[in-house]
C-alpha cells in the first residue's frame, strides 16, 4: 500500500489529557464569550422579526413571538409539555439506539469485508438517497399504530445514514496507521480495535449525529402521520382548535430540543473523546 501523502483523518478516544496552557484557555474563553454574544444577537433579531410579523399580522394563523412564548410557558407549567416529550422520546430513543448499534455494526462490517460491502452498500446507498418517508404508512399495516410502528419509522430514517457513515469512516481510516500496526505484527483483531475503530470514531460520531437528526424527523413524521401522540398530538390538537400560539410553541420546542440534543452530543464527543480535534 502506498503511503498517504497527508493524512487528514483525525481520530479520538482516550481519557483526560493534560491541562492546556493558559494562553490557549484565555483565547478559547474569549471566543466562547464572543460566540454567545452573537448567539444572543441572532436570537434577538429573529424574535423581533417574528414579533413584528405577528403584529402586522402577516396571517391570521401567525401568532406573535410573545404569544407563542407565553403559550410555551403555559404548556410547560400546566403539565402538558413534559408528558408529551416523555411519549415522543420513547420511540425516538429506542429507534436511535437500535439504529446506532445495528448501523455502526453493519457499517464497520461493510468497511472491513468486501463481501459485506458488495451485499449491503448499494442497498443503503439507495435507502439513504431515497425518500424513506414514503414507506412510513406501510409500517402501520403490520405493526399497527403503537410504539413499535413509531420506532420502526425512526429506524427507517436513521439507520441508512448511520450505516453509510460508519462504512465510510472505516474505509477512510489512515492506511499508514494500518501499515504501522501490521509492521509491529498486530493481529487482525488488534488492527480493528486498536487502530480502525479509534481512527474512525469522529466520523462514526458525525454519522450518529446525522442519524439522530433523521430520527427526529422520523418520530415527528410518525406522530403526525400514524396517530397523534406526544408532541405530534400537541401540534395536531392545537391546530384543530385554532390555538395557533400553542401549536407554534410545540413546533418551536421540538426544533429547539433537537438542536440542543445534537449540540449536547457534540459537546460530549469533544469533551470526552478529545485529545485532538484537528491534527493540522
Amino acid at each position: 500500500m502506498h503511503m498517504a501523502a497527508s493524512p487528514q483523518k483525525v481520530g479520538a478516544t482516550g481519557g483526560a489529557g493534560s491541562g492546556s496552557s493558559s494562553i490557549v484557555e484565555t483565547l478559547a474563553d474569549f471566543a466562547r464569550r464572543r460566540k454567545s454574544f452573537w448567539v444572543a444577537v441572532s436570537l434577538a433579531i429573529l424574535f423581533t422579526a417574528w414579533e413584528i410579523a405577528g403584529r402586522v399580522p402577516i396571517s391570521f394563523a401567525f401568532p406573535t413571538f410573545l404569544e407563542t412564548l407565553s403559550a410555551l410557558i403555559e404548556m410547560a407549567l400546566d403539565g402538558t409539555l413534559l408528558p408529551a416529550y416523555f411519549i415522543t422520546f420513547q420511540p425516538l430513543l429506542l429507534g436511535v439506539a437500535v439504529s446506532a448499534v445495528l448501523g455502526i455494526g453493519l457499517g464497520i462490517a461493510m468497511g472491513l469485508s468486501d463481501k459485506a460491502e458488495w451485499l449491503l452498500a448499494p442497498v443503503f446507498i439507495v435507502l439513504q438517497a431515497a425518500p424513506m418517508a414514503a414507506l412510513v404508512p406501510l409500517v402501520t399495516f403490520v405493526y399497527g399504530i403503537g410504539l413499535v410502528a413509531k420506532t420502526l419509522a425512526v429506524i427507517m430514517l436513521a439507520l441508512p445514514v448511520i450505516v453509510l457513515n460508519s462504512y465510510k469512516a472505516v474505509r477512510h481510516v489512515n492506511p499508514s496507521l494500518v501499515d504501522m500496526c501490521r509492521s509491529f505484527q498486530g493481529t487482525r483483531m488488534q488492527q480493528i480495535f486498536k487502530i480502525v475503530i479509534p481512527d474512525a470514531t469522529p466520523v462514526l460520531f458525525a454519522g450518529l449525529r446525522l442519524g439522530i437528526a433523521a430520527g427526529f424527523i422520523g418520530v415527528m413524521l410518525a406522530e403526525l402521520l400514524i396517530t397523534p401522540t406526544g408532541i405530534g398530538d400537541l401540534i395536531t390538537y392545537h391546530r384543530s382548535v385554532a390555538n395557533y400560539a400553542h401549536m407554534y410553541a410545540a413546533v418551536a420546542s421540538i426544533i429547539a430540543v433537537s438542536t440542543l440534543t445534537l449540540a449536547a452530543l457534540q459537546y460530549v464527543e469533544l469533551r470526552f473523546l478529545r485529545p485532538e480535534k484537528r491534527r493540522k
Partner: protein
Amino acid sequence: MANPIPLRTADNATPDAVVEVRDICKRYGDVEALRGINLQFERGKLTTLLGPSGCGKTTLLKIIAGLVPATSGQVIVNGRQVTGPGPERAFVFQDFALMPWATVLRNVAFGLELKGMPQAERHRIARHYINEVGLSGFEEKYPHELSGGMRQRVGIARAFSVNADVLLLDEPFSAVDEQNRRKFQEDLLRLVDKERKTFLFVTHSIEEAVYVSDRIVLLSPRPGRVSQIIEPAIDRSAAPDVIRRDKGYLDVVEEIWQGLRQYAE
C-alpha cells in the same frame, strides 16, 4: 583529517549480511516500480537508498518490511525468507503514523502493547527510548501538540523500543526544517553508534545521505534499478561542522550529483 575514498563495488556480496534482497521486481498494475534489485545489507551498518522521487525507494523498503508483497524475488532476513512483517524489523514512517488519540508514551509503547507486554514494563522501556530521542517531559503530550520533528522522534523511539535488529526509515526527516534536520542527523548517528543496529535509510537529500551513511545505494528512476553503490568513508570522529566542510565529503556529494543529474534532465 580523514581522506574519504569513494568506493565502487561491482560485487556487493558481504560476509555478514543481515538483509539480503534477491532479484526483487515489483509492478503496480501497469507501473513497473522496481526491476531486478539485488542488495545485501551488512549488520551494524547504515545504508541509504537514494534516488529521485517515484523511483521506488518506499516500495523497496516496504517490501523488505513485509508490508508490500514483491511481484517476484525474495528478501532474506537473518537467513529466513520474509513473508510478512516480523519482530526483527521495525519501520519508521515518512508521515510518522502516530495515533492521534494516544499520548506520546502510548504511541512509543504501541509495538510492545501489540505484543501483549504488561503495561508497567512497556512503559518503562518506552520512557527509556523517549529519553534517548530527547523527548523526556513530553510523555503525556498528544502528537498534535508536537512539531513535525518531535513527532518523527516519537516514531523513531517506537521503532527502537521493540528492539528489532533492522530499522527501516522512510524519509524520516522530510517534514523537518533544515536547522533541526542537521541536529537530527547528528542524533541519528549517535543512536546508530549506541544501538548497534542495522539501518536502512531512505532520503532524497544527497548531503544527508553522504553525511549519515556507511553506504549509499543509488536507484535509477522508474523502473527502479540499482545504478551505483558508493561508500563514503567519512571519519565520523570529527566534529560535524568539520565534516560538512571536508573536501572528501564535498567530493562524494559532487560525485553523486553527477550520477543523478542525468535523471534530473
